[in-house]
């Protein structure tokens, strides 16, 4: 559920993804070759389903190209101060495109090439969106810490 939530805009969309994803998992279970763990196979199916869900039911984000984007090295302590639920909630507030690339690259460990193939975008676009996603996420996390502090 948390995996779907990271790709979704809200909890109800995450539940829809989860439903469709599980149905797809059961539907395709006979295709599981046994290579690798079942968990990572299911994870891939769920991610693919989440991406298909976004394509099917809509919203896609593109971004204006803003060059010379300066990214400050964020303090790890910011993240330590927040719970996983809070971080998930903040990730969910990222724009769709940022969130998708960030999830795939940072959390799921996909390469930019894989992301580019999956989302049908260029590798450079994937990179620039990741940079922007990081910055926006860091700003949001910092703001939360400040408000709490």
């Amino acid at each position: 559920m948390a995996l779907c939530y990271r790709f979704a805009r809200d909890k109800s969309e995450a539940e829809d993804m989860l439903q469709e994803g599980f149905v797809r998992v059961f539907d395709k279970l006979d295709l599981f070759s046994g290579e690798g763990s079942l968990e990572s196979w299911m994870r891939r199916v769920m991610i693919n389903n989440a991406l298909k869900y976004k394509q099917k039911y809509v919203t896609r984000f593109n971004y204006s190209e803003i060059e010379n984007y300066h990214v400050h090295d964020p303090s790890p302590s910011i993240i330590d101060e927040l719970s996983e639920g809070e971080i998930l909630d903040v990730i969910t507030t990222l724009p769709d495109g940022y969130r998708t690339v960030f999830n795939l690259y940072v959390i799921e460990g996909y390469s930019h090439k894989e992301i580019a193939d999956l989302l049908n975008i260029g590798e450079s676009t994937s990179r620039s969106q990741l940079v922007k996603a990081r910055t926006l996420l860091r700003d949001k996390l910092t703001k939360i810490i400040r408000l709490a502090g």
Partner: protein
Amino acid sequence: MKNFDENIRDKVFNSEMDVSDHIWDYIDSQISTKNERSRYWLFFFGSIILLPILFIGTYYVNNNNLSNSESIVVAKDVSQDNILPHAEIALDGLESLIEERLTDDLSPIAKSNKISPLVSQSRKSLNLGFQIASFRKQKKENNNLQVIKNNPTKKFNAFYSPYIAERSASPLDLFAAKTQCPTFQAQGNFSSMYTYVNTSGYYPIMILSSAGDDVGDFIAKRKNSESSLVSFSFDAGLGFDYHENWFVETGLSYNQTNVKFYNRKEDVIKNTLRIVETTLIDNISGDEYTQIDTFIDQEIGVTETASLNTFKQIDIPLHIGYRLPVSRVFDLAVSAGVVVNLKTFSKGYIVDSSGVPYEFTNQANTDNLFKTQVGLSYTGRFNLETEIYPDLYLNGGLNLRYTGGNFNSVSNTVNQRFFNVGLGVGMRYKI
């Protein structure tokens, strides 16, 4: 940067969340439905495979029976002793008539039947023999029947029904040019029945108009964000040849109209305040001034919303048409009719009056922008048709459809209709 990524990943990679209880019930039902569906698909594809085999088998069985010359002999034997004088004449002349028919130009019905002449005539001749006997029996039992005419002409119908009788009027008389002996009537008017399947790819022209209010701007926004895509329909049913070249068809059809929705919207997703402090020195007086300029740097995000809007319709079509022979090989089938909509399923996105994308579906209670029943549509078809196998016809041509009723509900201020122009192909098989 690695630290940031790794910290985030460590935090959320294996995180868990509770889900609503009903999710599992839904998944369970979906999995069950999937299994059911696979059975339906098995049945569907099984039918597709079995039906042609059935048709071909039926054809061969009929073909073998009909081409057996003993059938005609049997007909003679049955009717030899107790046949009416007129019938005897008909039977005596049967073989010569068959030969004559084989060499004569065939009537339009014979042409449209395009059955091997020998097979066709043999079948009808056998039919004649039995019907004569049957007619005699009826004459004995029913005084309303009376032989008034024996008219073997070169017309195909007349050849099959030389006996025309008078009887009490019935509703079937509406379809009969003359009141005939009931056993001949079906052949004389509805000469054959067939099954048909058609599929069509078409381009839907969306017609948007105001539903009363002045919503010109709204319509313009919708036109900018919606564009037609290639759509398709599929229908199958039964047809009846009526009189010579007329036909009527009815069945069930599925029609899916596709519309592409695309909306681009720019939003400010981040404002950065930049303050520039500049120190100025007056060279003459040596005074220092501080000038402060403030700038707001905006990061603009573009939201693109894209969707495939679908309007799926399940309908009952009713067509009437005429087949016009245009060459030895082709007939031009022109038909027109009405389509009664049983159910319409709409889903997709449109912009609202302020230009913001808005999801709609007529299956949810959240909004009712579009109807679940659209009403009547009107269709026209211009198909060229040719026989590719005995009793099996292939056709294709121009298909038109205009949706008479609006897709939108009363609460939707923009009337939406479609005019579909497409190309279709189909087959029909006489049974």
